[in-house]
């Protein structure tokens, strides 16, 4: 289990992480979400002691990271796929890591096989694509067979096959009772792999819950209807307090639930061909929740 308690990190007057607390349970993939600049990477660096904390603590099964003599056996970390010397071969990159933690050469070969880099292991990292570097980073994570895994944007630069591979890999790691914390901007990916979510904004915890709970709490819901008497029924719904958006096929109704709409249809002898409740995606929920925490906004341009 990974336990973060009251973590605060300041850079001068800027508070990057503000009294952040959360738990990452074993046997689950926990998604770590937040807008750009929300403090996700800083949090991960602080968790393993790369950045000093102003206050708070992180423990892995009750032990601080800095107290591990051979931490790769306990915690696997991928913070940046580019954390490898471009002039060194992948095999040598893993070998120096392995030697520093008393891990055998044969384990280096094993993890190269697992991530599919055996054939190119003697090639210099500088000649690797971003996707290959990500795989190498994951090989480093797996070296010590750790019980906790921390990954910052592991799917960055991976092709669809690679994304599917990492999805299965993370699920497998969690199924082996490891605590898996993974940050990603690919919310669709997170929705497929994560059991729990930790959402932060401006360095503060916004929510920690399961994915369905998160969507249920923050995503909008609406009812999709289709009817041959759509225009007539739309005015009935408006009078009942609904807000109707006519579409090319059918309409979307806000502010009324499916039961109410069904009863109104029956009462007014309106034929319905479709009556279905729809919910926004994880992305919708995330954007809704973090809109006030976004530091950097973009525009589509073109306006005067």
């Amino acid at each position, binding site marked *: 289990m990974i336990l973060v308690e009251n973590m605060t990190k300041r850079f001068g007057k800027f508070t990057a992480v503000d009294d952040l607390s959360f738990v990452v349970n074993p046997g689950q993939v926990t998604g770590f979400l937040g807008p750009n600049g929300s403090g996700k990477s800083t949090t991960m*660096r602080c968790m393993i002691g790369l950045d000093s904390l102003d206050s708070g603590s992180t423990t892995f099964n009750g032990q601080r990271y800095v107290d591990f003599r051979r*931490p*790769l056996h306990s915690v696997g970390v991928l913070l940046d796929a580019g954390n490898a010397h471009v002039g*060194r071969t992948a095999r040598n990159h893993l070998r120096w890591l392995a030697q*520093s933690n008393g891990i055998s050469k044969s384990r280096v070969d094993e993890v190269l096989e697992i991530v599919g880099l055996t054939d190119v292991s003697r090639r210099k990292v500088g000649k690797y694509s971003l996707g290959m570097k990500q795989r190498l980073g994951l090989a480093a994570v797996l070296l010590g067979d750790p019980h906790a895994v921390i990954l910052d944007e592991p799917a960055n630069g991976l092709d669809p096959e690679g994304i599917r591979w990492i999805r299965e890999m993370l699920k497998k790691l969690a199924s082996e009772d490891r605590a898996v914390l993974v940050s990603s901007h690919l919310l669709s990916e997170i929705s497929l792999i994560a059991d729990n979510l930790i959402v932060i904004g401006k360095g503060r915890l916004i929510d920690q819950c399961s994915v369905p709970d998160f969507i249920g709490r923050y995503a909008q819901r609406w009812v999709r209807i289709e009817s041959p008497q759509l225009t007539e029924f739309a005015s009935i719904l408006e009078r009942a307090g609904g807000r109707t958006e006519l579409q090319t096929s059918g309409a979307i109704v806000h502010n009324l639930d499916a039961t109410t709409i069904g009863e109104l249809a029956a009462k007014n002898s309106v034929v319905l061909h479709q009556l279905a409740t729809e919910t926004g995606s994880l992305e919708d929920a995330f954007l809704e929740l973090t809109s006030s925490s976004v530091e950097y906004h973009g525009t589509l341009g073109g306006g005067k």
Partner: protein
Amino acid sequence: MIGLFRSEFLKLRSVRSNLTMAIAAAGLPIVGTVLVAIFISVKDVGETTIPRMINSAGNVSMLIVGILGVLCVTQEYSQSTIRLTLAATPNRFSVYVAKLAVIVASGTVLMTGVVIACVAVGNAILSARGFSGDSTHPDAQASYVALVLASVLVGALGVGLGAITRNPPSAIAILLLWPLLVEVLIGNIVAAVFSRNILDWLPFGAAFQATFLEIEDLKFGRFGSLGYFGLWTLAIVLIGQVVLRSRDA
């Protein structure tokens, strides 16, 4: 700690630029000695011929060992591997000690090998050319030992400078400009204004002079001067350790 030492040694030898530096440090005195031994007129050969050649080229090698020390640390920052290094070994002091140990060991082996190779090759070529006199100066061995020790100290200084600056160009510039420009300027200015020779008090001035054959005028003696340079090295190494411990990776 042995594993960490092996890990750091693997890092050092698995990058081509480091190997190039090591080859340059070794090659310069050897090539110089070979050329001198081949082209010098046999009647001009004396007991100082080979030691002088080794010491003059060895002083350049000494600075190259220093650059190797710089790269040992700064490459970690320029290539962002420092995060992985400190994630694998959270005890920063151990990492720093391992890097110092690797540079000290590598510098010792490299420069000892260079001296032995230069003496052997130089004497072999001179013998083949018909030189039958004594080519061994009585102070040669002491100057060779001083050269190896000074190189090791400069290597350690490079590690310290690397930890302080975290930036290869800055650390290498300091390492080269300090002896080749700053100390020369300071020495010349003091000599011109106060008519005093302070070369013995300048760190690199003391280290370089300690490797010379003749050291009669050296204020602290050969190994005293190396000890003086060692104090400067120790100070830089300690500052480097403080910086490495206190700054975010």
